[in-house]
């Protein structure tokens, strides 16, 4: 493989292309991407909208809402709120939708690779 540093014994003889093509793995991949990609795009858009407003809509951002607290400060603090919210959302999504299926696939692969004493069974999947 030419890459000894990354190939601990546990995964040395697994046919990863076969695992990759299983329905189960494709499902995991789909669940992961269908959450992280839209979410990443959403928070980046919201962040850059904020930066652009602060940069080019100074008048709007300087509008006082309550006492000395202006729109800019409120939008800035909302960036904090959205960051905390997305963090919590991702954690609960991972726990519910990603971790169980990832653990299943992992057990399956590692189960095939080792006998009950933990010794490697050579090349069963090859």
């Amino acid at each position: 493989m030419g890459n000894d540093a990354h190939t601990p014994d546990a995964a040395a003889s697994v046919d990863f292309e076969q695992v990759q093509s299983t329905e189960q793995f494709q499902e995991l991949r789909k669940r992961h991407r269908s959450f992280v990609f839209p979410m990443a795009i959403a928070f980046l858009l919201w962040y850059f909208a904020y930066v652009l407003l602060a940069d080019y809509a100074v008048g709007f951002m300087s509008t006082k809402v309550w006492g000395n607290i202006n729109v800019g400060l409120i939008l800035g603090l909302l960036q904090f709120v959205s960051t905390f919210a997305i963090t919590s959302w991702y954690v609960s999504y991972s726990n519910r939708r990603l971790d169980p299926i990832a653990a299943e696939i992992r057990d399956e692969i590692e189960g095939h690779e080792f006998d009950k004493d933990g010794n490697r069974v050579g090349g069963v999947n090859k």
Partner: protein
Amino acid sequence: MIGIATAVDVAALKDTTLLNMGVFGLFVAVTMVIVFRASRNNKTAADYYAAGRSFTGSQNGTAIAGDYLSAASFLGITGAIAINGYDGFMYSIGFLVAWLVALLLVAELLRNTGKFTMADVLSFRLRQRPVRIAAAISTLVVCFFYLLAQMAGAGSLVSLLLGISDWGGQALVIIVVGGLMIMYVLIGGMKGTTWVQIIKAVLLIAGAAVMTLWVLAIYGFNLSSLLGAAVETANNPAVLNPGLQYGKTETSKLDFMSLGLALVLGTAALPHVLMRFYTVPTAKEARKSVVWAIWLIGLFYLFTLVLGYGAAALVGPETIRTAPGGVNAAAPLLAFYLGGPLLLGFISAVAFATILAVVAGLTITAAASFAHDIYASVISKGKADADTEVKVARRTVVVIGILAILGGILANGQNVAFLVALAFAVAASANLPTIVYSLFWRKFTTQGAVWSMYGGLGAAIVLIIFSPVVSGGATSMIKDANFAIFPLSNPGIVSIPLAFFLGWLGTVLDKRREDTAKQAEMEVRSLTGVGAEKAVNH
């Protein structure tokens, strides 16, 4: 207004030097004892670099917060808000939101595929040698820029504490900091460094919390009154509005965009932050540690808003600007105003330890990168034993320590948060495209990685050299010359898109195809954690 401003007698600070230094010395002594105790178990390379992968998510999350909340966050942001008002708050927001990139796209996948360094992941399914060398070089450069900023912070802080304003005295201070740092890393390795980060993060957040509550109490826990007082002291209602620093011209507005881009994309590409994901046993713990870090860091950045405007209101921008240490002295001056020499001593000690610990974390990352990626994998082609590798790492620490000292002396006097933002721009340009592509783009090739890394790194560095940061400005590194032909002080808006483009172009033009089996392995492992490095038991 004048009455408030003169309430902070900068000259009187000198009288409290002994107290400051006493508190600081005590802190250093305590942490050294902890480092010694923690390092007794440093047996293997995994111990030295990745702390035996034995930290829990919350411990590691606190350490990440410790790594991340450097002098830039405490001294730099507080100073930036105190002087530039709302524009300084941008740093807090960018530095925090950036964590979502790390959480969603990078942290767990990286933990599952790597071993010690960023290059492990980047070269996983590409050709080892070229990618590893490129990743190691960019790691060294990013760490160097980050170190510059920390050293500049150390210079500002201590020149304020000791009242040293001459160049030679500050240089001597930086040399002492560098010496301490080298000792920390040589003795403690990652385990010792992680404990220092944890202790320091707790103290820093606690100290900032006390100061925040104190400032708020002065204004009857009414944020609006605090802001009003800041306007009154500064005699400028614009401190509450965006644009005070960056709104002057179209070029400076573009600079603000560039800064915003670099801040949000930089974090997930910082080698010393990435390396922290390896000190936990599983990807789940890596996720936990990022979540924990996000809460701590977010909380801290909320404090900086109050501290920054508090310093503006109670100390005053003019006093801050003219104090030894300049803009970076806002937080310590606020501490002095609130709690006199005792609080100043405590806060300074924490800030000082912050710099020391962050520098240690950066140095160990750079050392690991050189020893593991260049020495062990490229120079000795994987034949070096772990002992030799650790020995090379230790020697690299000494060399990097010396470079950091020299760089720190040069960068002294600039805002620390601004200098760190340069490191963010370099990291986002050199590393982020390759990290994202190799994790998510099946067709990505070695040529794409190499073009993107060298192109992004080169563009960022060249643009910085020809920017007002290095020459032609009042706070430039070289004040007497002017070759600043690039008008923006942050290169991100040019170099980051360029690096993404080069990664794509290099890939589509590459005639070689990468190993599909390796791609499959990387994808399966990154998502499931199969065969990931386990904790080392002692």
